[in-house]
C-alpha cells in the first residue's frame, strides 16, 4: 500500500513537470515574440533559444505526459483525472503549436510570385510600389500587397532578391 502511494506521488510530480516544461517551451517564446510589446535583446534571445529546442522537447514532454498520465489513470480520483486530461491536452497542444508558424496564418505567404505587364496592371497610378531593377529587369511590388504578405522571394535580372515591407 505504501509502495503504490509513493509511486503515484512520484509519477504525479513527473507528469506535472512534463506538462510545465512542454507548455513553457511554447508559451514563453509566444509571449515574448508578440506585437506591440517591448522586447529587450535578452528576452528575444531567450525566446529564440527556447524556439530552437521546442520542436523536439515539446514532443518528448508530450510523450512523457501522456504515458505517465495513462499509467496513473487507474489510481486517480475524479478531480485528478480532470487534471490529467487537462495536462495531457496542454502538452499535446504545445507540441503541435511549437511546429506551427502562426504568423503565416495571419499573413499568408506568396508561394510563387506571379507578374503582369505594367500596361496590363489594373493598379491605380496613385498607388505606391516598391521598385527594383537589375540588368534591365524592372519589377514593381505594390505596397498594398507587400503590407499584407511582408516577404516576397524573387529573382530579378538573375539576382536573388528578398523584397520585404
Amino acid at each position, binding site marked *: 500500500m505504501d509502495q503504490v502511494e509513493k509511486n503515484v506521488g512520484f509519477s504525479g510530480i513527473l507528469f506535472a513537470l512534463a506538462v510545465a516544461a512542454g507548455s513553457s517551451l511554447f508559451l514563453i517564446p509566444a509571449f515574448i515574440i508578440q506585437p506591440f510589446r517591448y522586447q529587450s535583446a535578452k528576452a528575444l534571445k531567450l525566446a529564440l533559444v527556447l524556439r530552437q529546442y521546442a520542436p523536439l522537447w515539446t514532443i518528448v514532454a508530450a510523450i512523457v505526459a501522456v504515458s505517465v498520465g495513462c499509467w496513473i489513470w487507474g489510481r486517480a480520483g475524479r478531480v485528478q483525472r480532470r487534471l490529467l486530461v487537462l495536462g495531457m491536452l496542454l502538452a499535446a497542444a504545445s507540441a503541435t503549436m511549437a511546429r506551427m508558424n502562426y504568423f503565416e496564418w495571419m499573413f499568408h505567404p506568396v508561394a510563387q510570385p506571379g507578374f503582369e505587364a505594367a500596361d496590363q496592371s489594373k493598379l491605380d497610378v496613385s498607388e505606391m*510600389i516598391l521598385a527594383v531593377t537589375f540588368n534591365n529587369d524592372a519589377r514593381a511590388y505594390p505596397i498594398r500587397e507587400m503590407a499584407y504578405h511582408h516577404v516576397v522571394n524573387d529573382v530579378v535580372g538573375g539576382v536573388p532578391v*528578398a523584397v520585404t515591407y
Partner: protein
Amino acid sequence: MLHFYLAGINNQNFLMRDRETGTWWQQITGKAIFGRLKGATLELAPSDELSFGLWKKESPSGQVLSAVPRDAKKYDSKWEEEVAKLPVPISFPGTELKSRDVVIGLELAGEARAYPFDTILKQSPIADRLGGNPISLVLGPDGKSVRAFLSRIDGADVELFRKSGTGEFTLLDAEGGEWNFKGCAASGSANGKCLSELAAIKDYWFDWRNYHPSTTVYRH
C-alpha cells in the same frame, strides 16, 4: 539562394527565417541575429518607393507583382493610415521627432541621418552632406515619390534646384543644366550622365532610431 518567410516580430519590425538554414533575420537591418548564419548581413539592394504611375512611365516594359487571388480581399490600401494609429512598443522621448513620424533614412560612409518626410515635401530638393559626401533628396513629379542621390559627377559637387514656372518637372544645376527625377542630366555639361542613387529606407522614426542609435535628424 535563400528563401525567406515571415516568422515573428521584434519591437514592430518583423523577423524572418530562411527555409534553407532556419536562421533568424531582422528585416530592417538584414542581419542574421540567431542560428547557423548568425553575424551575416544581406546586401541592401537599391530600391525605390514610387507611385505606380511614375514607375510605369519610367519602366514601360516592367513587370508588376500580381495579387494572390485568395488574399486579395485582405489587401488594404488604407493600411498606412491605420498603422499610423497603432501603439509603438518602444519610443525615444526627448528626440526631435514623434514615434510615428515618417522619415527617409539614409546611411553613407558610416553616418546615418533621418529626413522627415514632411520636410522633404516642403523643401525638395534638399542638398545635404552625409559621411563627407554631397547628397540630394528629391521629391518626384507625383509629389509622393522620393529619391536620394550621391550628388557628384566626375569629382564635382552638383546642387539641384527646382525649375519653376514650367508644368514639366525639371531640376536645374547651378549652371542651368537640366536634370530629371532619375538623376540624369538632360542638358548642360553633364548631359547624358546620371548621379548614383542611394539606398533610402522609408520608415517610422521609432523604428529607424531603434536600429540606427547614432542617427541624426536633418534640420534646416
